[in-house]
């Protein structure tokens, strides 16, 4: 009997972290606002520490003493850690934007999220190495490492932002389509005169043409995105934004049409 009680206690203790761990994860689901607040705080910290490093390095360059060198290394370490924190939170924000973007293509989204996750894992390793980099050579090695990762980081961000933008356009088009269907139904079911109905139907057709233009812009932007994924350029967002611009004008127009149709 005693053994059974002891066994049950051990089991309960062993399972406790998993049970409570899960509830904690559920309770601490981050929101965009909380992520943004953390990101801004981290960025402020980074700017302050970067200024401090500039001062410390200048002093080291002037004095060239062991003490000033140690101080500069400490300052550099703090900058490296703060910078890694900014980047980690930034990629959290990007992941959150993609995860909550209903319009983004699911398979493309999975690929980008996986890229971001791998990047974040590497950033965490760099952060851990920076934490124990106590001499000038090791701290500088970590600085060089991030320098070598710049292109990769910008590319991942560019892909995520581009996909998010296309997704936002798809979401807008889907929403307009749903509302249009409902408006069309209400026009047909209403007791208005046939002349009025004809007028409204014309408006609805105009709206349909606008939606086709939005769809065409999305198709052009998507095909450009698909090509850009294989390229190494990290400035595709601007091109995609310009391809979507005519579509956005049509989105605004469609909204106005809908407002007119329900009058």
């Amino acid at each position, binding site marked *: 009997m005693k053994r059974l009680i002891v066994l049950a206690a051990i089991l309960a203790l062993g399972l406790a972290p998993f049970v409570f761990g899960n509830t904690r994860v559920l309770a601490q689901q981050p929101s965009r606002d909380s992520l943004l607040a953390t*990101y801004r705080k981290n*960025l402020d910290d*980074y700017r302050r520490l*970067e200024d401090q*490093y500039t001062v410390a*390095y200048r002093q*080291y*360059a002037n004095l*060239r003493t062991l003490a000033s060198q140690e101080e*500069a*290394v400490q300052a*550099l370490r703090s*900058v*490296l850690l703060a*910078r890694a924190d*900014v*980047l980690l939170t*930034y990629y959290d*924000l*990007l992941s959150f*934007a993609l995860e909550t973007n209903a319009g983004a293509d699911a398979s493309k989204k999975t690929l980008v999220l996986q890229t971001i996750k791998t990047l974040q894992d590497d950033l965490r390793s760099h952060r851990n190495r920076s934490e124990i980099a106590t001499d*000038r050579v090791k*701290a*500088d090695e970590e*600085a*060089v490492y*991030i*320098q070598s990762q*710049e292109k990769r*980081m*910008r590319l991942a*961000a560019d892909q*995520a*932002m581009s996909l*998010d*933008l296309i997704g*936002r*356009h798809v*979401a*807008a088009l889907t*929403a*307009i389509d749903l*509302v249009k269907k*409902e*408006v069309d139904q*209400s026009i047909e079911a209403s007791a208005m005169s046939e002349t009025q109905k004809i007028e409204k139907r014309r408006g609805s057709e105009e709206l349909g043409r606008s939606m086709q233009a939005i769809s065409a812009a999305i198709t052009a932007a998507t095909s450009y995105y698909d090509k850009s994924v294989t390229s190494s350029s990290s400035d595709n*967002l601007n091109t*995609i*934004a*310009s391809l*979507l*611009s005519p579509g*956005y004008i049509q*989105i*605004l127009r469609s*909204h106005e049409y*809908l*407002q007119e149709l*329900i009058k």
Partner: protein
Amino acid sequence: MREELLNQTEFSQVVPKDPAVVQASVPVQPTQQKPPLKIILILAFVVGLLLLAVASVLIRQPKKTVQRVGTQTPLPTAVATPPSHLQEIVNNLEPVVKNADPLTNPNPFPPLDLRIRMTEPKEK
């Protein structure tokens, strides 16, 4: 002579009063003691405060007015009609439309210096 001089004080020449004369003098009447000025001032201050409080309460009291009931009953005011279902869904489109603006990037790449280094300073 010296002792005489030593015993002589400035009062040595004061002639003691005759006890009979002392008794005959008119006894001084005890004067009525006035309350000190401080207490009067404090009392005045307190009374002043009380008066002020009473006055302010009286001023604030709303005047009693008699409302005359008109013979005409007021007309019903227009009540704002709630937005229709369609109006509501079209209004809900607004944030989705704004969100699609390609010129606003909600997550731009952070402004970081990714080229910070700690090289050996050059010899002067």
